[in-house]
């Protein structure tokens, strides 16, 4: 399968690979996908007191498109507020990376990962207050 240049770029030079302390109060973790389906994404955000995503990290088990989708997602959400980050649509990711139809689910997973990380952060913040 021929991948787009952008996918190859993210695959070869993934942005923000790594992990944040998932126990920390200001960190939200999203873990989506399933090993049996061939894709698992872990996306983490570190959020400042005023609700801005200061840092984002990811780790992905999946094809080149899945790696690129999550890499791009971390790039896009950094510096955004939670509300802004929440509005990122999978279609924007798919379009930016020129994903073929069979790989659209990778962008869906990336959107889900962002939402799951935000939800985890908010749940933590709620139990704290």
């Amino acid at each position, binding site marked *: 399968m021929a991948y787009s240049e952008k996918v190859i770029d993210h*695959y070869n030079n*993934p942005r923000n690979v790594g*992990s944040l302390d998932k126990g920390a109060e200001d960190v939200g973790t999203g873990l989506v996908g399933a*090993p049996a389906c061939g894709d*698992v994404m872990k996306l983490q955000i570190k959020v400042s007191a005023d609700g801005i995503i200061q840092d984002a990290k990811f*780790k992905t088990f999946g094809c*080149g498109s899945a790696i690129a989708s999550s890499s791009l997602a971390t790039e896009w959400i950094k510096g955004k507020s939670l509300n802004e980050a929440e509005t990122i649509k999978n279609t924007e990711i798919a379009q930016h990376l020129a994903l073929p139809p069979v790989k659209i689910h990778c962008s869906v997973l990336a959107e889900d990962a962002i939402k799951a990380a935000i939800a985890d952060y908010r749940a933590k913040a709620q139990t704290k207050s």
Partner: protein
Amino acid sequence: MSTQTRVAKPEKKEQPGRNRPERPIYLDYQATTPMDPRVLEAMLPYFTTKFGNPHSRSHAYGWEAEEGVEKARAQVAHIIGADEREVIFTSGATESNNLALKGVAHFYKDKKNHLVTLVTEHKCVLDSMRHLEEEGFKVTYLPVKQDGLVDMAELEAAITDKTVMVSIMAVNNEIGVIQPLAEIGKLCRKKGAFFHTDCAQAVGKIPLDVEAMNIDLMSISGHKIYGPKGIGALYVRRKPRIRLQALITGGGQERGMRSGTLPTPLCVGLGEACAIAEREMPEEAKRLTKLRDRFYSQIKEKLPEVFLNGSLENRIPGNLNISFAYVEGESLILGINDLSVSSGSACTSASLEPSYVLRALGVEEEMAHTSLRIGFGRFTTEEEVDYAVKDIVEHVTKLREMSPLWEMFQEGVDLKSIKWAAH
């Protein structure tokens, strides 16, 4: 206008400090093989000077083409211990399998209506079986053991007096395991069922003898044994005679079993490929076993959590199928783009489903997603093997650092304990 032919050279991507091969290293010999230059040489005259129709009886052009075809037929027969009158040419193993299964089932349908095969067979066998089922035949698809081999007790239990034929491949195209042909043949003979075997991946790699193994029909492919694409053969036993209904009718060539003018150059190519393979098999098997062991022992030494799929003992020398746990196969293939390998059979690699062959061995779906098929062959060198090891180790390591599953494994998390959201 210049008459000079310009050949576009692929752009070389330079990477400092790395001695990259000019073209990817070919490690997919179960998908296809390059033609041996000696085969091409044997074929060439039959495209131009010896172009006659091998079925023309009235002139020298026909006679010399026929001579080429008949020599090739004898070469094909020789490598499997058959008589040349038992070999018919087809367009390839897919056609041979179709003809063997449908042809025999159709011919004997008034007496018997049952066939037995394995779930790990090639798609063209499984699909022919499906078609026969639609026509009303009964088919038993036997599971395989964890090492990929047939369970002889289960096979014996599956054969009834209604079983017209058992079809079991000699060597699996994904995992390279060798089925116990002689045992299967003996059992089929005892039970009165014909034994067909798809030998596309076996001819020229392991010794085959239709007499000693009681094989009644055998499918052969040209392009898997350094011969041309578009040619294959079917062995059909004469004593006792196996009958079959032709799929392609017409001029009655190939004893009425397969009409159509024979492609002389392709037949000659298949014959020559068989002759070379037969001559060089013992030495080549030793060489390939050494290369494979060199590859696998280095991989195991340098990478933890790698698993071989299928039996190592009962396996052709030129195949490995390895799961690199926690690394998704497609992303690995993208990384090791200096190597041409596949994540399954070429016929099914367009789908995102994990291999049905690996699933049949009991390989978990998540593990099947991490598997590569690595095929070595006649033109593989030690340098290539060492380069491949280095490249694979480098990329598996990199991708594991990026894998959430590898991280969890390192932290001692049981991946089975997590409730994954299937999607």
